[in-house]
């Protein structure tokens, strides 16, 4: 975490390779839009995955917020098992936490899920996370019915 301030020197852009996925021999590895963007495009063609103010001047709790975000991501990944189609976006505003993401409408393209299940999971996660994190949690999901809709390019 870097303290955000006015940047006066040019960016050195060290270590820019690690965030870029490697191409495969037959160029058949599907990437979603978010995955296809290299790290230096963050803030240009791709947004952040965590939105909060903990790295602003005189704002504390950077570490706590990061750990909480990790916890939320793991929780959502485990609760919406095999259903998450994208990264989990966590927005913090006031003392609310808004968790966004894309979900698959079907499991391995064979059977489509009953929306009831999603509603149950959303209600469950909202309530349980609220009690874990002591602040109101809201989940805003969209559903992707076809897995191929997620593919931005293949490398």
């Amino acid at each position: 975490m870097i303290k955000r301030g006015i940047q006066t020197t040019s960016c050195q852009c060290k270590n820019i390779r690690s965030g870029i996925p490697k191409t495969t021999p037959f160029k058949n590895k599907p990437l979603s839009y978010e995955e296809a963007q290299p790290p230096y495009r963050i803030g240009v063609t791709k947004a952040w995955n965590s939105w909060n103010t903990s790295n602003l001047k005189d704002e504390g709790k950077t570490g706590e917020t990061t750990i909480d975000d990790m916890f939320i991501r793991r929780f959502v990944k485990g609760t919406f098992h095999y259903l998450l189609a994208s990264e989990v976006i966590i927005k913090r505003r006031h003392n609310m936490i808004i968790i966004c993401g894309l979900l698959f409408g079907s499991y391995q393209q064979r059977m489509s899920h009953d929306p009831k299940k999603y509603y149950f999971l959303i209600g469950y996660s909202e309530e349980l996370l609220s009690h874990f994190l002591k602040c109101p949690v809201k989940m805003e999901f969209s559903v992707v019915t076809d897995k191929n809709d997620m593919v931005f390019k293949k490398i």
Partner: protein
Amino acid sequence: MSIRILNNYCRLLVAGSWRRLATSSICQKGKDSADNKINKKERNEDNSKGEIEEELKSAVKSVAKSISGDEKQTERDLLQQLLKQTKVVSHSVSEVKPTTTPTSRDLLVNMTVKRFTEDQFENKGKSRIKTTRNNNENNRSGQQSRLVREGARTKYELFEGPDLGIFDPPSKQSAPAVPGEYDRTKTLRHKLEEEIRAKSSTPPSNAFQEMIRWTEDEKLWTFPINNEAGMKEEAKVGFHEHVFLDDQIADFPRKGPIRHFIELVVVGLSKNPYLSVSAKHEHINWFRQYFKEKEPVLRETLGDASKFSETAQKV
């Protein structure tokens, strides 16, 4: 006192327990004077002659006897009161609409009259329409009122026509509410009712409504944003108590190293935003205690400069 009793009985009559009273008065005639009297009073007014019968007089006497105090005075009060009622009744009988607004007490008595006459009216079917008409069309025969109803049905206008004539317009009664025996809004009942009202709610219909709901449940930080939100303890102490701590060290030695030291402590404390006022006081107290304990040792080196003044104790 006696008038009060009468009125209370009138109220009882109104409230529907008159039947029980009336029968009991017949059974225990002469024994229970108050009940007896009610019966008589009604009969009297029912005749609406404006006279007080002998029987009633004796009943009043017996009431007056049963009530301690000036017997004659009570008797006179009672009779006067009864006379007044009968006058009001006969007066209102002669006119369809009473021009004077009767006092509450009169109205109550009127009501007892109404109830009684209605009962008799049903039994005997004699012409007592004059009396009954006074007490609104409640007592009219079915045929009459049906006619009225059908005629009136077409011409009803919202907020027009006669009113109940019970309350006065608010401008006259702008007097402050009479303070009750207890404050209802502070009782547990009030709190519980509020809780129940808050619980029975529909889901929010937009994000703002949801935030309102959360604020009411004390889940969301409140707007407008306040850096001191939730500091309930701190809200009770003023800013000056944090900054001006000199009064706390008034009893410290006037000069010398101890004074110098404690003044520096106070300056430090007054700039400290993290400690509560009580913690700051505690801090100073600890030093006071410490220096007092060490006073014998300090006296040797510092002399008077280690002496705590007894008069200027901390406020």
